[in-house]
């Protein structure tokens, strides 16, 4: 691990203290887990503290862990993952926070901390149904006007529920139940570790 990452980890421990629910380094990147209760305050510290100084929110996205590892996942279902960038110190951080309620995932909004979170939170709401209390304008962003459901949840079929076509009799575009047969060409497989290594059969 580089000296820079060590320093960042030290600073994180110093300024976030017991608000850290998990801190892991893998592939040269740091992942910080935060509990939902501590989330907005921790994010504000990350931005304002001179020794951390994450001025920019590069990305915020939802993740649905319900089928992770083909059912191996034990934790909560919906996570929000933020990618932060500090231009001052030239380092990055991934912050992750899980929503407490799987049936009605909600997470405080961070638009007041980073204005760029505006559209990212709208997108996460649109695609995963994660609600962000405190967001002033939480409308759907990418899906069609009047779309039903949250398309990126793992239980939403890849072909969707409805399809659109032009109806010559009604002389307008209509929605109808989808006519695509679901198919899987390459099955999804999770192999055991060391699969295919020499000496492993």
């Amino acid at each position: 691990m580089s000296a820079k990452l060590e320093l960042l980890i030290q600073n994180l421990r110093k300024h976030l203290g017991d608000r850290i629910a998990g801190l892991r380094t893998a592939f040269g990147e740091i992942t910080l887990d935060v509990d939902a209760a501590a989330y907005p305050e921790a994010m504000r510290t990350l931005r304002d503290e001179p020794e951390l100084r994450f001025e920019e929110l590069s990305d915020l996205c939802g993740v649905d862990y319900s089928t992770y590892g083909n059912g191996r996942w034990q934790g909560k279902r919906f996570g929000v993952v933020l990618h932060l960038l500090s231009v001052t110190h030239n380092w990055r951080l991934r912050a992750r926070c899980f929503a407490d309620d799987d049936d009605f995932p909600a997470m405080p909004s961070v638009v007041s901390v980073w204005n760029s979170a505006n559209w990212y939170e709208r997108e996460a709401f649109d695609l995963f149904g994660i609600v962000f209390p405190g967001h002033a304008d939480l409308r759907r962003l990418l899906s069609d006007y009047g779309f039903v459901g949250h398309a990126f949840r793992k239980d939403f079929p890849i072909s969707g529920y409805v399809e659109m076509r032009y109806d010559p009799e009604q002389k307008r575009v209509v929605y109808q139940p989808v006519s695509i047969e679901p198919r899987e060409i390459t099955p999804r497989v999770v192999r055991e570790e060391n699969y295919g290594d020499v000496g492993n059969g």
Partner: protein
Amino acid sequence: MASIQNYTLNFGPQHPATHGVLRLVLELDGEVITRADPHIGLLHRATEKLVETKTWAQALPYMDRLDYLATICNEHAYCLAVERLLGVDVPVRAQYIRVMFDEITRILSHLMFIGSHGLDVGAMSMMLYACREREDLLDCYEAVSGSRWHTAYYRPGGVYRDLPDAMPQYKESKWKNGARLKRLNEARSGSFLDFLQDFVNRFPKIIDDYETLLTDNRIWKQRLIGVGAISSERALQLGCTGVMLRAGGLAWDLRKKQPYAVYDRLDFDVPVGTAGDCYDRYLVRVNEMRQSTRIIQQCIDWLRANPGPVISDNHKVALPRRADMRSNMEELIHHFKLCSEGIHVPEGQVYSAIEHPKGEFGVYVVSDGANKPYRLKIRSAAYAHLSAVDELVRGHMIADVVAIIGSIDIVFGEIDR
């Protein structure tokens, strides 16, 4: 006296100045904009969801369809992410080829910017000149990958194949014959690198020509100077990256600050602006084209001197050579497993970001150890820039909206994904 109310105007989605399918709902006070509400998603194809059902290799061509004016850079970010999860080493020659094509792509994207921005603002001829030069660079794409746009040239572990020794030539026809045909084929008589060298020799002069047309053009300046200005602090707060930051004076370039591939071995400068308005963004892009030409020149020199492999020989990741497969059982098994089941990527999550022509392009992948991505999130620069449009256009006239949208250089393939 009748009360004066704000007027709401619908702009797009089918409008050439929206650079794709953007619907803008503008709230106007007279001709001054008080609020802009971009409606996006008209090109939403759910790329990120689709690749969850595709193997790691099948997901790669989807990256081309994001920013379709800078296809190869998108592939680069995806390949870097997968390679980091796999821990596979990329041959140095492949990294030089990647950098060279990244810079070709940057020029392609910026040329399109100059052309279309010219069209938006009223300089019709720019598009014709820009497309003339784009033609040569798209021929480079075609020569290495067989495709002019959706190349799928980068692969996890390297690039698909080495640079070709010969360029395709124009054939004699009713329109191309005699001396003209000879002149057209002159640069194409050598190898791929000779053709690119010829372009690199010509291009700085061509950029000078563009600048004589635009940089001091009175109309161009009147339309752009002071329009859509944004300070560096505000730009960071709004998630802006790339040219949007640099035009405001902050020399933030991932190629310098967090180098990937072989950018740390190359010599180039990072152009910055001062005012952060549309005109500075134009100047930064023009200067970036000059710097890209410099980088390409260095790559050409290195690639001429250093032959070698262009894709990893780890056959758990990269396909074995066709000839080996015919004679060797082991290679055949690898080929079968790679084509039927695909790469197995170790469990973990990675965010890889590159300096895309439009800004920071990031790919966040979560793998649970399967042969398909568990979750893939694409962080596109233009998405953040477009979300800042409301702030950029407030207080400007309707005509300035077109200039601002043109100068943030958006492509809907990557915004709607």
